[in-house]
């Protein structure tokens, strides 16, 4: 269609390209920001990750990235991503369901505000909160101990994978509720009524309609939680002393340490691998997201 117009009205070409230019204009701020803060840094990161300290091309950064201790870092980071997501998706989904369907609008609003705050609590303040609560001198630790349960007698510590997991749940669960609530509210009352009219019971409704509809959002939420746990930095950095290799911390040490000298390019290579792992998690998320939105629109 467009091509046809162009061919037929050759003289007005100038006017046409002008209008085309104008049609791009509204996107311009987005394109600029996206290029400057996303495309440019990533391409630069990928480029630098293939350089040696003498600025010649090399693959050695990536070879090192998959050796000890950096491969352990990836494994631990992936573990903490999967565990922290796995432990929060089910309870988060159930809470989101009851709040969205049974809760008063007042409850829903106040919970949404609270979740927004909790999901964004991180870094050193979060680490400090947990140290004060579950550290060896923590308030809860002492309360549990006087109740007969000494959690520190069994190698518990906030600086272990288990300890970090407990801390991460604090922001992962509210995050799950936030991202899953829209999916619940998209379940229409008419569908339940239609199913009941056709003779389905509650169980059949859930197996045939509810769960298949929610499943893509559920998986998508899981992947998002994974990415969030996989890449968290500041809290882990405040709690651990390098005995628990995690990729974000290793990158931090390589880029901003006092000890390991001139390992900048290795740090960038680790960053590239992290981006790839996140992409593997986020690409299916985008795909599923598109399917879900198509279904809910129909």
């Amino acid at each position, binding site marked *: 269609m467009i091509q046809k117009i162009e061919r037929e009205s050759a003289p007005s070409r100038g006017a046409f390209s002008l209008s085309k230019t104008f049609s791009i204009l509204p996107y311009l701020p987005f394109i600029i920001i996206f290029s400057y803060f996303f495309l440019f840094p990533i391409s630069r990161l990928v480029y630098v990750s293939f350089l040696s300290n003498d600025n010649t091309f090399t693959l050695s950064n990536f070879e090192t990235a998959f050796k000890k*201790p950096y491969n352990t870092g990836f494994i631990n980071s992936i573990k903490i991503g999967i565990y922290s997501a796995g432990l929060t998706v089910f309870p988060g989904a159930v809470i989101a369901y009851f709040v969205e369907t049974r809760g008063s609008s007042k409850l829903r609003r106040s919970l949404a505000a609270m979740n927004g705050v909790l999901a964004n609590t991180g870094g050193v303040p979060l680490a400090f909160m947990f140290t004060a609560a579950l550290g060896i001198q923590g308030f809860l630790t002492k309360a549990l101990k006087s109740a007969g349960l000494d959690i520190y007698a069994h190698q518990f510590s906030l600086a272990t994978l288990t300890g970090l997991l407990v801390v991460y749940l604090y922001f992962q669960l509210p995050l799950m509720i936030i991202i899953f609530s829209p999916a619940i509210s998209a379940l229409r009352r008419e569908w339940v009524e239609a199913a009941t009219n056709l003779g389905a019971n509650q169980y059949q409704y859930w197996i045939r309609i509810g769960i298949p509809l929610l499943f893509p959002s559920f998986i998508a939420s899981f992947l998002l939680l994974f990415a969030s746990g996989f890449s968290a930095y500041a809290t882990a950095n405040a709690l651990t002393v390098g005995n628990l290799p995690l990729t974000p911390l290793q990158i931090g040490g390589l880029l901003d340490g006092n000890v390991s000298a001139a390992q900048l390019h290795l740090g960038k290579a680790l960053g590239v691998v992290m981006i790839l792992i996140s992409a593997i998690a986020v690409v299916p998320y985008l795909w599923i997201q598109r399917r879900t939105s198509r279904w809910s629109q129909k």
Partner: protein
Amino acid sequence: MRAKRLAVAATVAALFTTGLVVATAPAQAATNICKAKNVTEAGGMDALVAAAKKEGKLALITTPRDWANYGAIFDAYEKAFGVKISVDNPDGSSQYEIDTMKTAPKAKQPDSIDIGPLVVAQLTPPGGKQLSSPYQVINWKDIPAAAKDSNGYWYGNYGGKLAIVYNTTLPSVPTKATDFTKPDFKGVVGITGDPTSSNQAFMSVLAASLGNGGQKNLADVTAGLSLFKTVKAAAPLVKVNSSNLVTGTAKVGFMWDFNALGVVPAAKEAGISLKFAYPTDYVLQAPPYINAINAKSPNCANARLWQEFVYSQNKGKTAADLTAADLKLPGSKLFALMQGGQNYFQQSGADPIMSAAMKKKNTLVPSLLDFEVPASAKVVGPPTISDVLAAREQIISSWSSL
């Protein structure tokens, strides 16, 4: 439309020319000073102080006020020379300093740096361009040869010894590294950070090594690693930083002696009683922190006057003692009556790099620390750069899987 564009062009041109004027004026006046390799080449102390006063600014980087008494040094320098000191990213790392020198725009470049010994090699890359400008302070010969670059591209400044910090409520008092494994301290022993990225934590592993039988060979830290491994087998290592010490999460660990004057009072305010003591068997004298002038230094005179001040050995007046009459004195006279930078480090408990020479000249002031190396202890070190590099390989390869 056209008029508007012209106006824009005119503004841009105007900005450009004013920018040029501003940029060239001081550069012409300071040509000599930016290349000066000692105070004579800078025209003598009077001229150097005058030039520094005229610049009015000194840009430093990652030197917090509560580190090794820097706050008192800043106060004296600012008051005496009427110079405003700015410190970029006070809690940053040495690598941050190097990266800033390499990549930051002119306006963010520091004049002088204070870096850990493990990144020094990056200042003078073989075959590459030096990041620092050579300079030799008046007391150059008093810096031990092992602690400086012979051309003046970098020079040691002050060193620390590692002391044991502990909470006084513990059932017993830790007196040496091997005590860390005692059941009394289970779950509250740790290290200041990740030794593969923090210099203080790195040196703590070396200190642990001395106390655990590794005192003969500083290049081999397996004894230190195995001590921490034993500690970790009983309970995970805690992070010995001020917030964990104040909450009682961390109660025992190594720390720089020169930070005791900052850490102990802060904990006391929070109701926690901490003490510092040197190990009773072996005390690690760590390699010194290093100073250098940035090759891209924006305030050339202050960059050099700052070195002279930090490496000055005088006993004398601190910021509070300087009178209005003192401030009117010619630069060299004013400089001579001020307490030198080396003595501020000495007060903090750090070891000024020139302490041996100062002891001979009787210019060393007393330290303000309430603890000293016990008679039974042997001070070991400092380890050489090659020792430290070998130790680094061991720590990097085994710390994460301890």
